[in-house]
């Protein structure tokens, strides 16, 4: 018998062009709550998917109670007693709690195939009571709060007799009181003999629950420590402590007059009380954890998701932005995070994509003018150095970096003052990244005001003049470039400070 219920050795997982996990080790003791930590994109989610059989690793071995196992699909993992509760609950909102708990392993009478409703309801009730919850198993899943849905997911894990339970950021959407309940349930599970892998961005979760913490960074295993062995500072360094391995281009140009003043902007349920200013030629970094409300704030400025509180003053004039068309007319452009879904028409040529947001300027009383369209497309595609043969090449045939350049070129068709870039280097290789940084700096020196959303710390610090850190729908800190460090940003974005009941 092994000392560990679960042991992974040298796990490597590669996706086309990306090494998502690089030689990762992990050891889970029975009855342990084990925290798994790391920045956005450190490889935690991929790691979980390897354990639960969603992804098969390219290299490495996995042992369950000392016995070597290989999962080819999630069912294999489930049969071996591994259950995962994901960050975004993946339930059936229109079905009852009981149906959600027993989905995939319903109690069925032999021969007739009849579903044993009463037995299932009773069992569901029993499990929920054991978790200290009074949820009615017959109620509709969608009518429950996020916290309650999470409890149902845990009940589901118990009903499959899971011995290893993985919780992926379960507290992200919970209030502190609900989190407290979840802690108790988690401890209960541990006391009943389950081993738990707990992923969270919150330090308080980790200190409250875990006895061991393992850190991943840049797809690699960094280390594993007992919770008393490591200080808060050392842990942060372990999470971010890479050298800045990108050279950020020199900034030219000066910061000019005030362009934009956002005052008390709010949208119920997404963000509140967001205030900041942006100047000509300035790059304002907007960072924070995924889900902190960064994208929502920017989409509000762009009219995709109209705000319901606060004011926006643009070039000294108070404006109300209700649609993207209006935003573009007022001089605000937005480069969406998901360029394939939101930014580009993949089936179209480079030229058509570039001209799409400038059709009214290209057209003459509504008629398309090919010559003008092609000339503008060519000029802008060359300006951002798109690598292709002609402007008639399909965007789907380009690499991620080149697609992103097309998306940037598209913004430049309009007469903009402000450009919002949402994760501009996401999914882009190193070479193209530098090219995109170069373009961003070039734009800033031309006098555009730039808001850059990014989760990558070195990028935010290397590129921005000022950095606004968001947490739970609020801007918690605005740092000047001179004093910004990764540690300071991470601390602001993770630690529950005074805004305990934000959002």
């Amino acid at each position, binding site marked *: 018998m092994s000392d560990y219920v679960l042991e992974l050795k040298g796990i490597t997982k590669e996706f086309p062009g990306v090494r998502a996990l690089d030689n990762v080790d992990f050891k889970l003791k029975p009855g342990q709550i084990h925290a798994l930590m790391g920045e956005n994109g450190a490889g935690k989610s991929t790691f979980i998917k390897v354990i639960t059989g969603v992804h098969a690793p390219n290299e490495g071995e996995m042992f369950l109670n000392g016995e070597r196992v290989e999962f080819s699909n999630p069912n294999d993992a489930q049969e071996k007693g591994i259950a995962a509760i994901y960050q975004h609950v993946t339930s059936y909102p229109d079905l009852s709690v009981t149906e959600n708990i027993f989905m995939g392993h319903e109690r069925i009478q032999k021969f007739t195939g009849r579903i044993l409703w009463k037995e299932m309801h009773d069992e569901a009730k029993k499990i929920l009571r054991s978790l200290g919850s009074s949820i009615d198993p017959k109620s509709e899943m969608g009518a429950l709060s996020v916290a309650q849905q999470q409890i149902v997911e845990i009940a589901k894990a118990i009903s499959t007799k899971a011995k290893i339970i993985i919780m992926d950021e379960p507290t992200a959407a919970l209030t502190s009181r609900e989190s407290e309940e979840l802690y108790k349930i988690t401890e209960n599970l541990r006391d009943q003999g389950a081993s738990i892998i707990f992923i969270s961005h919150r330090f308080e979760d980790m200190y409250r629950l875990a006895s061991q913490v393992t850190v991943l960074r840049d797809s690699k295993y960094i280390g594993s420590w007992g919770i008393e062995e490591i200080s808060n500072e050392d842990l942060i360094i372990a999470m971010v402590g890479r050298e800045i*391995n*990108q*050279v950020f281009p020199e900034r030219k140009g000066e910061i000019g007059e005030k362009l934009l003043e956002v005052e008390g902007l709010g949208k119920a349920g997404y963000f509140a009380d967001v205030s900041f200013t942006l100047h000509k030629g300035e790059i304002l970094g907007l960072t924070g954890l995924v889900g902190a409300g960064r994208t929502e704030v920017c989409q509000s400025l*762009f009219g*995709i998701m109209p705000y319901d509180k606060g004011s926006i003053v643009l070039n000294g004039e108070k404006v109300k932005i209700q*649609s*993207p*068309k209006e*935003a*573009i007319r007022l001089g605000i452009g*937005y480069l*969406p995070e998901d360029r394939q*879904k*939101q*930014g*580009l*028409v*993949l*089936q*179209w040529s*480079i*030229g*058509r994509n570039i001209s*799409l*947001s400038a*059709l*009214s300027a*290209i*057209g003459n009383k*509504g*008629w*398309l003018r090919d010559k003008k369209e*092609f*000339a503008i*497309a*060519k000029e802008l*595609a*060359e300006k951002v*150095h*798109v*690598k*292709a*043969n*002609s*402007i*008639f090449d399909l965007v789907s045939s380009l690499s991620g970096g080149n697609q992103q350049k097309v998306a940037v070129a*598209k913004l430049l068709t*309009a007469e903009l003052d402000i450009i919002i870039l949402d994760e501009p280097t996401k999914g882009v290789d*190193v*070479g*193209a990244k*530098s*090219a995109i940084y*170069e373009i961003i700096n070039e734009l800033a020196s031309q006098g555009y005001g730039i808001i850059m959303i990014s989760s990558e710390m070195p990028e935010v610090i290397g590129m921005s003049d000022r950095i606004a850190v968001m947490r739970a729908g609020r801007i918690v800190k605005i740092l000047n470039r001179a004093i910004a460090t990764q540690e300071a940003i991470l601390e602001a974005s993770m630690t529950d400070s005074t805004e305990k009941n934000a959002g």
Partner: protein
Amino acid sequence: MTMEQRTLDQNEYVQRTLKNKQEFSLKKFFLQWEWLLILVFLLVIVINTSLSPYFLNAAGLRDATMVFLDKGFIVFPMVMIMILRDIDISVGSTVALSSVIMATLYNTLNVPMGAALVICLLVGALCGLINGLLIVKFKELSAVIVTLATMILYRGIAYVILEDQASGNFPEWFSFFGWGSVAGIPFILIAFTILAIVFTLLLHKTTFGRQVYAMGNNDTASRFSGVRVDRIKVIVFTLAGLMAAITAIFLASRMGSTRPNVAMMYELDVIAMVALGGISTAGGKGRMIGAIIAVFIIGYLQYGLGLINIPSQTMLIIIGLLLLVSVAVPKMKVNWKFKKSGSKRKLE
């Protein structure tokens, strides 16, 4: 930074010139769906001629064209609707409602025929406008459900107005729409040609048409690009209603009267023509010219089959099969290409 990366970066900065003239590819030119349609069209003519000696008769063809062209008007906006990945099955009912209102205004309420015509067009456009507004306001409802509801609704209103009666006795001049000709060419064919040109230009040569294609390919990206997606959708559906009203005028003129059950199943014929014309139900693809050729294919096919006394039930089978083949063939073509190139790119 490694050497390798540095060279890569430098390459990125090398100023490259992009061509802005499209290379002409003969192969690509002839691989277009429309050529296949022209082939099918010729095939229909050849088979019909060999089966019936009466087919290639100028007067006969002329009359046949006047009969099937009336629903052709609805094909134009339906092309746009299907490029938008939507569908409108209420157009047949819109034809009935607008023609019934026109006839009732003239016969019962003594409204002058000219004014009745204008109101007919307005009623049709209003029907389409309602469809469009419902579809953009209730995003969770698909166009097929919304227009199914209004299909029943509009037909129902037509029945309430006229019950099961016919209404005719139009003024003499009104028959010109259905029966008149200019210089030997039927007026309906002239009208069809003019509108075909207008809609072809609208779809392929204007910024409006470009935005329709953009929405059909990627609705979200279009919105992020500042395309007023809701507005465009409402306009397209309104055009469908307007064209249905034009069909109503030609139909009532040819028949000499109208009743609430006219233009039954027109929507299906129209959708069949559009699909055969190469407009993908997945949206974003296809051209106006294809659908226009398809109007004539289905029209002459029906006429030819009628001449050799094939019962209308059998005709349905033939047209159904033609449609199935026409939507399956492009998929087979893609599959074949896919296998041949050994490409790992997933098909949509």
